[in-house]
């Protein structure tokens, strides 16, 4: 209770206005009563949780407010926090402490009130604020009175009147709490007077210049700008508004003031955030250290990371250099793969067009027959794209033998010698490589192996596409004379060729990876090698898909062949 008395005394000393003095003192009394009649309030809250929640909220706001108050000690703050809880749980002692908080609060408000009034009596936004303050001052006054009501009615039973009073009290405390927060923040956080801020931002002479040049829009602009910069129109300016611009300037001043309030609010929230951070770190001395740890790793760690990063970059760069040296597309073009593909595409497109024109000319019966033939070939191609799973491991059987068998079955005067030769070269190289690596592991550098991989893959892919193109040409040329092998059979034989080639390519990828791995064990250049091996597998699968895509281009060619055989 000593605390309360001293605080009241303080208030009396500080406040110069008699009315204010009375109010704050009165409120002190009222709050004391709240403290003493805590029981009844709590009982009410049991049934009307809602009301108490709002009351609680307003108290909470006040306590936040106190936290931001630099004058308050940590002890005072925690007490306030306790009080807000104590409204729910009866405990008279701390409740009294809460009075200190609120009354001190009042003291500050009245001070602010005073200064505002003396400095800028004619400032319209300030007038509004003053009115606001008066209302909540009176409501605070009312809350003091109304808090008496439940105490009395508690003894005489629960009436509706007391409910209203409780509601009244709750809402009024809340509103006062809210506005107090804003005002308190302004006054206690050391946010400079709006006028001062504006003066800083816009030196007087500059301002005048703007006004003389283009008074009205400039004023509005400046107002908006001012609000952006969290500054505001000062009193003298508002005066000039009244005298020179009348109502229009008044409204603009009001809008600018509104904007300015909002931005001030945001600025205040920011400061609250900073303060809260400080409070948290004060409460938890290790907090700052913890945060620092998360934020800034030690110097050694930074250096280690930088070193690792540069090493990784260097390795990547090296790989990149090798990759740039041999590029599949370039090699593929060098082996005329692109030209073969382009030719095959031309044939495929022309055949597509021919199919359409043939079908248009056909009559119903023939059309059905033709369509069923076309579908039969499509089925072969459809099967080809689905049964990729059953990969016959025909690595042991000779590639050339397999291809030769398929080519023979096509019954075209064509032997894919170039494809076989390309494969033979690759096989020979692999043999030699394995032999060399047995005698001396370092006989082949990873880069050399990689270049060979790309070159030979490009070669075998280009040769496979060449086979498809030539077979297409032969089929289209030979058609008229020879019909011993149906287009459908040819489709499946060509599919067999595709499978032999793609299987070989996939077996090559394994062999190449082995070569690279052996070469790596010697050089211990793991960072550089892993991407190379990945690249080998990637290029192999790319080559396989190139071959498969080229095979698909054969469909219209074979369909044309089927249509021709009908004639």
């Amino acid at each position, binding site marked *: 209770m000593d605390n309360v008395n001293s605080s009241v005394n303080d208030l009396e000393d500080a406040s110069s206005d008699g009315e204010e003095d009375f109010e704050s003192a009165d409120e002190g009394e009222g709050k004391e009563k709240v403290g003493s009649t805590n029981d009844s309030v709590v009982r009410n809250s049991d049934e009307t949780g809602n009301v108490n929640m709002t009351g609680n909220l307003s108290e909470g706001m006040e306590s936040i407010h106190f936290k931001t108050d630099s004058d308050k000690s940590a002890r005072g703050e925690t007490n306030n926090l306790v009080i807000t809880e104590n409204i729910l749980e009866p405990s008279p002692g701390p409740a009294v402490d809460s009075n200190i908080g609120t009354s001190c609060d009042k003291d500050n408000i009245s001070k602010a009130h005073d200064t505002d009034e003396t400095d800028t009596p004619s400032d319209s936004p300030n007038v509004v604020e003053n009115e606001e303050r008066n209302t909540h001052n009176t409501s605070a006054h009312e809350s003091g009175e109304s808090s008496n009501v439940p105490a009395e009615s508690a003894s005489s039973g629960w009436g509706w009147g007391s409910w209203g009073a409780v509601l009244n009290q709750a809402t009024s405390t809340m509103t006062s709490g809210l506005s107090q927060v804003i005002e308190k923040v302004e006054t206690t956080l050391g946010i400079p007077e709006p006028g001062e801020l504006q003066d800083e931002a816009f030196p007087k002479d500059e301002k005048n210049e703007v006004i003389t040049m283009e008074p009205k829009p400039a004023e509005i602009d400046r107002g908006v700008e001012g609000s952006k910069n969290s500054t505001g129109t000062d009193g003298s300016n508002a005066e000039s508004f009244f005298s020179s611009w009348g109502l229009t300037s008044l409204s603009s001043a009001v809008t600018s003031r509104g904007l300015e309030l909002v931005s001030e609010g945001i600025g205040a929230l920011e400061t609250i955030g900073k303060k809260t951070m400080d409070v948290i770190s004060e409460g938890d001395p290790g907090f700052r250290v913890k945060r620092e740890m998360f934020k800034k790793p030690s110097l050694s760690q930074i250096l280690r990371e930088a070193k690792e990063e540069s090493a990784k970059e260097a390795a990547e760069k090296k790989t990149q250099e090798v990759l740039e040296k041999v590029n599949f597309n370039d090699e593929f073009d060098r082996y005329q793969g692109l030209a073969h593909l382009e030719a095959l595409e031309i044939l495929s497109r022309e055949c597509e067009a021919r199919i359409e024109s043939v079908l248009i000319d056909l009559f119903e019966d023939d059309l059905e027959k033709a369509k069923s033939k076309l579908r039969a070939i499509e089925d072969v191609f459809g099967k080809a794209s689905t049964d990729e799973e059953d990969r016959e491991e025909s690595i042991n059987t000779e590639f050339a033998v397999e291809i030769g068998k398929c080519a023979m079955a096509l019954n075209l005067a064509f032997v894919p010698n170039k494809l076989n030769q390309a494969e033979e070269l690759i096989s020979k190289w692999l043999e030699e490589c394995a032999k060399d690596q047995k005698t001396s592991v370092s006989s082949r550098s990873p880069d050399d192996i990689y270049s060979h991989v790309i070159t030979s893959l490009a070669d075998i892919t280009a040769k496979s596409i060449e086979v498809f193109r030539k077979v297409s040409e032969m089929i289209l*040329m030979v058609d008229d004379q020879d019909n011993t092998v149906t287009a459908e059979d040819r489709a499946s034989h060509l599919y067999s060729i595709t499978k032999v080639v793609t299987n070989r390519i996939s077996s090559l990828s394994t062999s190449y990876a082995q070569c690279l791995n052996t070469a790596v064990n010697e050089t211990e250049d793991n960072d550089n090698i892993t991407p190379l091996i990945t690249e080998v597998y990637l290029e192999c699968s790319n080559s396989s898909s190139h071959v498969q895509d080229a095979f698909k281009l054969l469909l219209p060619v074979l369909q044309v062949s089927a249509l021709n055989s009908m004639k």
Partner: protein
Amino acid sequence: MSYAYLFKYIIIGDTGVGKSCLLLQFTDKRFQPVHDLTIGVEFGARMITIDSKQIKLQIWDTAGQESFRSITRSYYRGAAGALLVYDITRRDTFNHLTTWLEDARQHSSSNMVIMLIGNKSDLEARREVKREEGESFAREHGLIFMETSAKTAANVEEAFIDTAKEIYKKIQEGVFDINNEVLFENWFLC
């Protein structure tokens, strides 16, 4: 591998006039007397420099056999230059030039530069077609003319490069629509 332009060439003419030999001489600088019959088309490529610009010549060496004609015609499309070749030792190859020329004009761009080549100039003793005949045919049809020898490499470089120069000139004059027609400026890679 980067280049400013890519010119597509076609080599056309009767079978056995030495089309594939010309290509081999131009790309590989060698001569191979015995040659497999060309099936459909064969390819060759070489970089040349004109006006300090790198130009890639992508050459489509077509089969001369009559049976392939319908297929090889499909390949004319998009060619910027054509080498129309006859054998100076075989009159019939010269007589067929008109059909070849009609075919070429029909299936490719009207702006295509055509070079008439009388090949096997090294076999002067067996000559059946006079140089003047070739010259007048070329003049008549607006072609460039040259007698070459794939065996001795005489005029082979010139034949290919002069054609490229003519195409390049047409590009400079704005005759060729580079984007739509026959030339692809760096159309793939690089």
